[in-house]
């Protein structure tokens, strides 16, 4: 798998490249914003590690350009500031994860693997049931014309329902799928999740089947 590392500090950059290569990736290094943008725009990478403080073109602008041009590889942002405003800016610009410097190399490798797992996801890039379409790679939902940003939990919930269009999913089954284990408080948590999801995608796509669980609109009882 080919990764792009964008880091202007030679020590950090070299170490990132060495660690990721050791972890089995094919790694390229870019040391300024313009080079990074050009490479990301013209070549395919499985994921990108992007430092925000770059010479020539700052990391946030590079990321925005990529996203504007439809480059949807997962991007892990490295930031020196580590304040929430910058994290929000990074995520709003299209980053998939962030790490604050100084970071542990082992954790970075684990996060990259997590991003790649999420992105790899499913064979089918989109699944549609009724008005709801799910882009499995990007964890996005489209309802009608509206593009909706989903949290991983919301995405996994919808993914569960959309792949079982003919079934009503019980709360324990949903909890098992979402958390791996079913436990106390799951009913409330899933109710809260559905409430939040309905605010995003509209009230009528996920239906409550009293005493049974949840199903997508149009599913058979």
């Amino acid at each position, binding site marked *: 798998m080919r990764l792009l590392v964008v880091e202007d*500090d030679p*020590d*950090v950059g*070299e*170490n*990132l490249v*060495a*660690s990721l290569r*050791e972890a089995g990736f094919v790694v390229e290094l870019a040391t300024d914003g313009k080079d990074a943008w050009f490479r990301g725009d013209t070549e395919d990478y499985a994921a990108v590690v992007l430092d925000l*403080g770059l010479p020539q073109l700052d990391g946030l602008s590079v990321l925005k350009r990529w996203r504007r041009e439809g480059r949807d590889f997962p991007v892990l942002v*490295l930031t*020196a*500031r*580590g*304040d*929430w*405003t910058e*994290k*929000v800016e*990074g*995520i*709003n610009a299209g980053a*998939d*994860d*962030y790490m604050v*410097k*100084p*970071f*542990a*190399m082992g954790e970075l490798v684990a996060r990259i693997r*997590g991003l790649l797992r999420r992105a790899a996801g499913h064979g089918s890039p989109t699944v549609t049931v009724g008005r709801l379409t799910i882009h499995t790679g990007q964890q996005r939902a489209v309802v009608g014309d509206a593009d909706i*940003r989903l*949290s*991983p*939990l919301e995405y996994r919930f919808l993914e569960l329902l959309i792949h079982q269009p003919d079934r009503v999913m019980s709360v324990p089954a949903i909890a098992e799928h*979402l*958390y791996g284990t079913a*436990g106390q*408080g*799951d009913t*409330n*948590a*899933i109710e*809260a*999740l559905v*409430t*939040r999801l309905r605010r995003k995608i509209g009230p009528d796509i996920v239906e409550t089947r009293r005493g049974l669980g949840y199903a997508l609109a149009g599913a058979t009882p």
Partner: protein
Amino acid sequence: MRRRSLRIRLLANAAAATLVALGLAGTGITFLFSRHIERREAVSLTAKAQELLTTLRLDPDGRPVVAQRPSDSRYAKPASGLYWQVSAPTGSLHSRSLWDQSLPRPKQAIATEWTLRRTAGPFGHGLLILERVVRPDTTNRVVLVQFATDDEALKTARSEFEREIALSLALLWLVLVAAAYVQVMLGLYPLRRVGRELDRLLRNPAARLSSDHPQEVQPLTAAINALADARAADLDRARKRAGDLAHGLKTPLAAMAAQSHRARQAGAIEAADGLDRVIASASATLEAELARARAAAVRIAGTDKAAYIAQVVDDLVAVIERTAKGEQIVFQVDLPESFRVPVSTGDLTEMVGALLENAVKFATRRVGITGITDGLASILCIGDDGPGLPEGRSDDALIRGGRLDEAGQGHGFGLAIVHDLVAATEGTIDLGVSPLGGLAVSLRWPTGGRDIERAQTYAND
């Protein structure tokens, strides 16, 4: 301190000055009064003397003779206080009231005009004597004519007048002191206003003294404002330098972390552990300094903006949902559309970010974010369904230490910034039990304050 009171000093000066002025006025008036009554007495004596002079003549031996004595009965009563005496070189004549006494002769040559003098007289009385020499006939023989009155009555009249005038002037003094008090209070009012505005400036360094002070006070307020601006600029520069320094150190620290990683791979585990400890400690210090610098900036710059909390929370939740723990959590957001707090978006982002991160760390399934405005305060509450605070832990100590650690493990610096920023924006922070079962952290900003008013104005724009 009272000695330094401008009000007391002005009042004391005004009271002393009016006291001296009224004292002088009283003395002057008394002097004029006694001169006036002396003149009246002189006129009265002159009239009596003229009555006697019309019948005064000298007998052939040169002794004075009067055909008609003054009619006032007091001249006939011994030691009555009213006397006359006519003296010629060869004999003299006097009122019966003098009895066997005589009026003292003048030491100097006497004029042919009436003159008035005071002297000690018979019977131990002080006397006011009106006297002159006359030539009753053509022989050029002179006669000294003296009319005298006891000055006891004059003294009594004068002392009565003095008492009355003193009383009147004392009353006048009180009225003048009261007027001075009113004047001082009115005059010093602008300074009291400056004092109040300075208090405000002390509480909120972004405040400035208003520009509509009287022109005498204007240079002072302008100087204070300039000083406050200069201080804010200095602090801002220092804060920026501290921030730049901290950011500048982050990348070298990352490089050190990289070296540590290499060392570990090369088998130098101990060296790598040592390096990691140093890096962790330096990072924590840097973060704490950045948080402090940020809170200081808020204190200097004030909070002119009201954050749209719902947007801030949505953005932060989107960030936290990407973390390993955050993606397991459902965020229950209940923020009314109109809910605002008097904090800028950037500062609120830092506070809520740190609190959400903390809540997520300890939550089992859910984190709740609610906003209430109860008329007295805007309250933002972040709660979770985690284990909550252990019994008997001091809220305040936990907040101040920046360790809102429900499970007992250190939580690092993230919450120090919450404490600092809440304090810098004149809010308070409380820990309690969340309806979800875990810890609830409530941030409370009083409404009705200037900042909230400004915040609402901003929100309405």
